[in-house]
């Protein structure tokens, strides 16, 4: 797939370029700040943009703002935001316009390249990939919310894993359940959240969104 990278630390940017091109991806551009990212995305029309939250000039959240901007300007573009820290507020801002094709991962997840590359594939396919840390924080923030009150603890667990972008079989493996019972839980979640039968991928995204907004 075609990828644009925005990361200001040169050593990591070069490392990412090397990794992605060695896996057959086309790194169309690798830039170091938000403005150049917007230009590069407009020029190269990538499938996915990989964006660091902290970049010059202020080193606070310009990557996040750039990511929100390019998502708005280029619907269908996948965006993977990564950062040394997960901030609950940033996650909420990033997902405010929908969770299709969005990822928010801790930087250290890059160190496990198999997971990282799989996350990129899922984002390119329009799914949502959230760091377990994001899920923990959002779960914390929504503990008092009533919206998810109807779900059983097990169903919440399954939903949290869906938010991390895992497939049913991956969830089954992680929770030591059979594939069939995971499917049953997922259907229960859809029903309890009032999501009617339609494109199942789309329903997954909606369920995750409902989960995040709770």
């Amino acid at each position, binding site marked *: 797939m075609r990828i644009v990278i925005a990361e200001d630390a040169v050593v*990591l940017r070069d490392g990412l370029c090397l990794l992605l091109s060695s896996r057959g991806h086309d790194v169309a551009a690798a830039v170091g700040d938000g403005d150049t990212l917007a230009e590069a995305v407009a020029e190269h029309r990538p499938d996915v943009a990989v964006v660091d939250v902290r970049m010059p000039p202020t080193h606070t959240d310009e990557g996040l703002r750039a990511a929100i901007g390019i998502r708005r300007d280029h619907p269908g573009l996948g965006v993977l935001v990564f950062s040394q820290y997960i901030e609950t507020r940033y996650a909420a801002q990033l997902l405010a316009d929908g969770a299709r094709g969005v990822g928010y991962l801790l930087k250290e997840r890059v160190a496990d390249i198999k997971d990282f590359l799989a996350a990129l594939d899922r984002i390119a396919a329009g799914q949502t990939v959230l760091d377990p840390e994001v899920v923990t924080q959002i779960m914390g923030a929504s503990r008092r919310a009533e919206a998810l009150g109807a779900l059983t603890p097990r169903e919440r667990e399954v939903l949290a894993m869906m938010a991390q972008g895992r497939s049913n079989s991956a969830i089954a493996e992680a929770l030591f359940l059979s594939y069939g019972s995971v499917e049953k839980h997922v259907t229960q979640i859809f029903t309890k959240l009032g999501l009617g039968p339609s494109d199942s991928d789309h329903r997954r995204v909606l369920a995750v969104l409902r989960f995040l907004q709770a």
Partner: protein
Amino acid sequence: MGKPKRAGRELAYVLTLPLTAAAGLVYLLIVAMGVLSSASGIGLPLLALCVPGARGLGAANRRLAGLAGVRVAKPAPLRLPAGLFNRLGTALGDAAGWRAIIHSLVRVPAAVLAFAAAAGLWGFGVILLACPLWWQAALFPALTPGGWPGALLASVIGLVLLLAAPAGVHLALGPERMLARTLLGPAPAAARIRTLEETRALAVDDAAAALRRVERDLHDGTAARLVTLAMSLDMVREELAEAGPSPRLDRARALLEGAHHTAKETLAELTDLIRGIHPAALDNGLEIALTTLAARSPLTVALDADLPERPSPAVETIAFFCTAELLANVAKHSGARRAEVELRARDGRLRLRVSDDGAGGAAISPHTDTPTGTGTGLRGLADRVRVVDGTLGLHSPPGGPTVVTVDLPLRA
């Protein structure tokens, strides 16, 4: 400053002296009345108004003293505490007010001296210089220089007086200047406190800025390199996985596995360390950083922040670490299930309130050498808050609930 300009300004200053000296004496009279009647109790409120009120007199004199070439720093503003009696006491003991009152008393001889010098030199100078005119016009029939030589001599003397006038008046203003300098500025101890406050604020801001720099260097340099290193190790691992079986390759794989694991652990430790030095989200405001803090807490934390004005970075850092420590305390010791964090910026103060529904009974321990338990944690927080003149209040009856309030200035 040119000499003629200085002479003009000093003359102007001297001309205001009768007015300011008289105003000072009238004020003294009122103060004296206050002192005399204070025995009966009526005078005390009068005096409590008069003493801080003398600051106005002092301020006027201080500004006028600028004409005489004296630059005096403003005394520190009067800070009135809460409560009527406290206010009364503070107002009565206001050093800057009393010093202004003393100034208006002891400046009288100095003002007389300066005024006499100016009148003698400038006044007589002009009169003598103009002697031929008024003699010829016979304005003062009683006074006569007795002929042209006398009139011209008087003129010359007048000229000499006028030439000497700028230096003479400047000299005669010496005591006035000295008194203004010593009595109208901040008292020596107050000036020292002011310097200490300013340098302390600088030190606090400096320390906060230094920590931010360290954090940024670690984040942009060391952490980025470690991520890259761990990523490269994983890539090597995948490369080796493709290679065929061999005992040596197996050993290399095991070593590599360990190295990759260590790199990731180091990175996680470094990340925690960096967060402890300075949470990056603080740069974007206290509320964003606290939202994450609340969400990461094992308790249900309701955060309610209203910050129309942004505190200085050092104060934000203190408020953040206070909240972190207090929430950790709640989670560890109180047995509470919920906590509330309330943050308000009002009237130049930042108020933080952390309450929980736990068992209560917390106390701030006195200073000890062996730090154990919650008390010393709270002691440490109170000390940290004191660095910027903040206060920490604890209300924790046995059975709960516990409420901790932290009051900080918006600017250190």
